[in-house]
């Protein structure tokens, strides 16, 4: 399909849910109510690490207005010695995350939950629950958790034959790194740290659950997967999946943080016990203490190159905080770190380290920004050492079609080098810089994902279209689906309604995550729509009494083709829909696929900063995101992903971090002190979309949403180096850190 032939693909149409969203009508998780509904509240651990020796809920239960109390004994246990994987999660850890079992593992870990006639009564009742804790020493930072005398979080975890806080490892090897480093003319090795950062979605977790006496359960919640909510709730409560209907509310941001359940299980058990619908809404403080974030990390990265810039070997070791239960994104860190490069000898190693923080959740390209940070910083230094332009160094080593990546796959056609070439000739890269200003570049990779998706395409009796898919729409994917369906049918996109089905109305669909939604759902929507078109042609053939093969579908109507061309006036979608009853009945088709062929995504960022030498404040002056997106089905929402991801990266690089007190409690659990970028911090974010269609997708789509977070940390850091002459290898580069480094540099000079 060439651009000129497309009527809707590639056009910035108005999103199907648009009017609802700008008028306040759109119903998010906390916006739903039910008659007779009561309120649930969670009692959370005041300690970072403690054995729970006993819980007495009798006083809480006796409080007037209290309808039900739940503790870990009400939730199905999964013994620690038998893995129960569900996607990338493990139910052994999920059951212990939704409610502390043997131990409280972080400050804010749920201990019990209460449902009562009002939120105030539920909160009052939580205070009446008596918990007997044996407080233990805690380990917050990686080095605390790895120290010889570290408090061991889980006695069932061993590493190197000893009790340990290292819960797992992952390794990728290609070639022989020792031999590779021996060939190098220049070798640079540096240590890096990054801090845990929260996904920062503006909508706190919330749900409303009703359980009938026959266990028929309705869950209204905002998540990145209604089928995930159903599966996890079923596993944790014992209610069969067929009895649970999980309805996806509009979701107010997720970025990976809503790919697991927190409240739904508790509300389900409270609703079952009380016989009343239960609503639960987290406060922002609860969100910050007990959900997300992504891992903090430390890493060591070593890269060797010849004088001409050819990389001979690269190695990276990554330690990632998992929080209180195993499962940090070491795959993303160790897998994505070297992925943009054609490296003959590579080795990456990841360690999953448990510590007394909230269990990490997925955050946009989980692990990849951590992996890329060290590599892209070392490349910057290497370029300087070799006297090369940093984009040229990357271009020299850029992975391309046929490159075998260190993490395994051999790449098909893709556009990494194109993003570097576009950056080189971009106005931004050539613009002059003033005093105290600097420019940095960096690149990044994300795997992208396929997996299970389902869709149903139905033609209404009046000849319009309703598409139902199974993926919560987090950033405008419904608009992309409408464009594709309208394009295939040859009708105005406004005639296509796109809805997100609940678990009872659409087939199984995996999470909204991994940058998979438009990729996977457009495959099932394309298949369904093409089947509908086949049916429409058959109906026309019946009316004309000719062979169905002799009918074509063009511009929203059936036309006789071949020998019959021009013999009958075309039949429109409306006309065929109106006569469906006499010609064969309802017109619709469903499709369910385990999609494959997602292929990775690559991007390059250019960042200009100005450093205020007095205050240590870094201002981002100009920022450009260049990325191969395969095919931009709805360009404005593609740009939006690129811009939003870049700004999250800037926040991670410059300001975002948790501050813990000496007792292991988060000191800044709110938006005032956990400083995410605000409008006045940011410049416009320029985007440069590269379209090298994914050959394995009907429209050429690649995932878009995650890549733009990956290069940003190093792009900002390399720009600050250019401005200040100081290489920061720890994040965030907040004003006190900048000032301190600047003062030390001045003193040394």
């Amino acid at each position, binding site marked *: 399909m060439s651009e000129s032939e497309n009527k809707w693909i590639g056009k*910035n149409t108005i999103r199907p849910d648009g009017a609802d*969203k700008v*008028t306040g009508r759109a119903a998010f998780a906390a916006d739903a109510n039910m008659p007779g509904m009561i309120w649930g509240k969670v009692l959370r651990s005041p300690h970072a690490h403690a054995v729970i020796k006993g819980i007495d809920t009798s006083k809480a239960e006796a409080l007037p207005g209290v309808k039900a109390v739940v503790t870990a004994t009400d939730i199905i246990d999964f013994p620690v010695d038998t893995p129960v994987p569900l996607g990338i999660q493990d139910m052994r850890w999920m059951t212990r995350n939704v409610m502390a079992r043997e131990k409280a593992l972080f400050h804010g870990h749920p201990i019990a939950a209460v449902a009562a006639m009002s939120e105030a009564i539920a909160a009052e009742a939580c205070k009446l629950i008596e918990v007997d804790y044996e407080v233990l020493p805690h380990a917050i930072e990686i080095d605390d958790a790895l120290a010889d005398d570290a408090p061991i979080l889980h006695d069932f975890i061993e590493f190197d034959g000893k009790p340990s806080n290292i819960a797992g490892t992952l390794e990728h090897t290609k070639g022989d790194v020792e031999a590779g480093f021996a060939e190098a003319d220049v070798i640079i090795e540096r240590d890096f740290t990054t801090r845990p950062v929260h996904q920062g979605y503006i909508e706190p977790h919330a749900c409303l659950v009703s359980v009938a006496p026959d266990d028929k359960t309705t869950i209204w919640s905002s998540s990145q997967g209604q089928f995930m909510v159903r599966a996890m709730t079923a596993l944790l409560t014992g209610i069969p999946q067929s009895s649970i209907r999980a309805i996806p509310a509009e979701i107010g941001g997720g970025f990976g943080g809503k790919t697991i359940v927190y409240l739904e299980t508790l509300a389900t058990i409270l609703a079952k016990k009380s016989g009343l619908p239960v609503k639960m809404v987290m406060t922002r403080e609860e969100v910050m203490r007990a959900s997300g974030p992504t891992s903090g990390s430390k890493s060591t990265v070593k890269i060797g190159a010849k004088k001409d810039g050819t990389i001979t070997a690269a190695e990276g070791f990554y330690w990632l905080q998992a929080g209180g239960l195993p499962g940090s994104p070491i795959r993303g860190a160790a897998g994505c770190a070297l992925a943009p490069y054609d490296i003959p000898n590579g080795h990456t190693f990841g360690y999953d380290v448990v510590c007394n923080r909230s269990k990490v959740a997925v955050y946009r390209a989980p692990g990849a920004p951590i992996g890329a940070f060290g590599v892209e910083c070392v490349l910057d230094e290497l370029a300087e050492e070799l006297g090369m332009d940093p984009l040229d160094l990357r271009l020299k080593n850029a992975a391309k079609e046929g490159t075998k990546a260190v993490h395994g796959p051999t790449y098909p056609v893709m556009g990494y080098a194109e993003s570097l070439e576009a950056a080189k000739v971009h106005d931004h890269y050539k613009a002059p810089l003033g005093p105290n200003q600097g420019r940095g570049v960096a690149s990044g990779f994300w795997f992208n994902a396929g997996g299970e998706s389902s869709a149903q395409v139905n033609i209404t009796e009046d000849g319009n279209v309703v598409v139902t898919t199974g993926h919560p729409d987090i950033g405008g994917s419904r608009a992309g689906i409408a464009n594709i369906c309208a394009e295939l049918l040859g009708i105005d996109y406004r005639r296509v309604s796109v809805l997100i089905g609940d678990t009872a109305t659409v087939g199984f669909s995996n999470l909204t995550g991994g940058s998979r939604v438009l990729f996977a759902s457009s495959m099932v929507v394309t298949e369904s729509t093409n089947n509908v078109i086949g049916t429409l042609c058959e109906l026309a053939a019946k009316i004309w009494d000719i062979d169905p093969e002799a009918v074509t579908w063009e511009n929203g109507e059936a036309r006789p083709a071949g020998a019959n061309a021009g013999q009958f006036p075309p039949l429109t979608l409306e006309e065929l829909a109106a006569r469906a009853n006499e010609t064969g009945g309802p017109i619709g088709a469903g499709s369910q696929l385990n999609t494959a062929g997602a292929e990775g995504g690559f991007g390059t960022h250019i960042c200009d900063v100005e450093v205020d030498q007095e205050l240590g404040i870094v201002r981002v002056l100009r920022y450009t995101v260049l990325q191969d997106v395969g095919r931009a089905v709805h360009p404005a929402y593609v740009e*939006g992903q690129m811009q939003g991801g870049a700004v999250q990266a800037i926040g991670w690089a410059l300001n975002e971090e948790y501050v813990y007190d000496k007792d292991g409690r988060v000191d800044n659990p709110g938006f005032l002190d956990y400083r995410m970028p605000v*409008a006045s911090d940011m410049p416009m974010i320029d985007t440069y979309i590269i379209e090298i269609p994914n050959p394995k997708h009907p429209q050429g789509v690649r995932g878009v949403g995650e890549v733009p977070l990956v290069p940003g940390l190093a792009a900002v850091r390399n720009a600050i180096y250019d401005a200040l002459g100081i290489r920061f290898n720890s994040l965030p580069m907040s004003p006190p850190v900048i000032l301190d480094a600047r003062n030390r540099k001045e003193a040394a000079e």
Partner: protein
Amino acid sequence: MAKIHVTTKINGEPIEFLCDPSETMLDALRNELGLTGSKEGCGSGDCGACSITLDDRLVCSCLMLAAEAEGKEINTIEGMAEGENLHPLQEKFLEEAALQCGICTPGMLVAAKALLDQNPNPTETEVRFWLAGNLCRCTGYDKIIRAVLDTAAEMREAAQ
């Protein structure tokens, strides 16, 4: 605790409601009056998702007591469109894809309208500082700022 009886005007309509003395305006809107367009992102005045106007002044409804609405005029996102005609800001947000998840959108729109009502010709910097109290985690602000500036330009043109 005895409830307080409040007589006020919301989106142009006279309204009476009962509230607890400690109840916020945001809770009253959402829980007593069914106006769930205003969102709670933080409950502490830091995200702007709950933005409303109180006698034409932009406020965070999570920081205001419901009882303070007595005798005042309140406008919320639900009152922004006139019948089936969207406000130019609402139109522009849709045309220019200035929302992704949309949870910040009601507050952004209410805040942006309050700006344009008093300053029909803001600079980019003025828009960025005015909206600095409205967090958006999805868009990186670019398209929001552009949509506000473009709406302002169009409204100025239309007014001529």
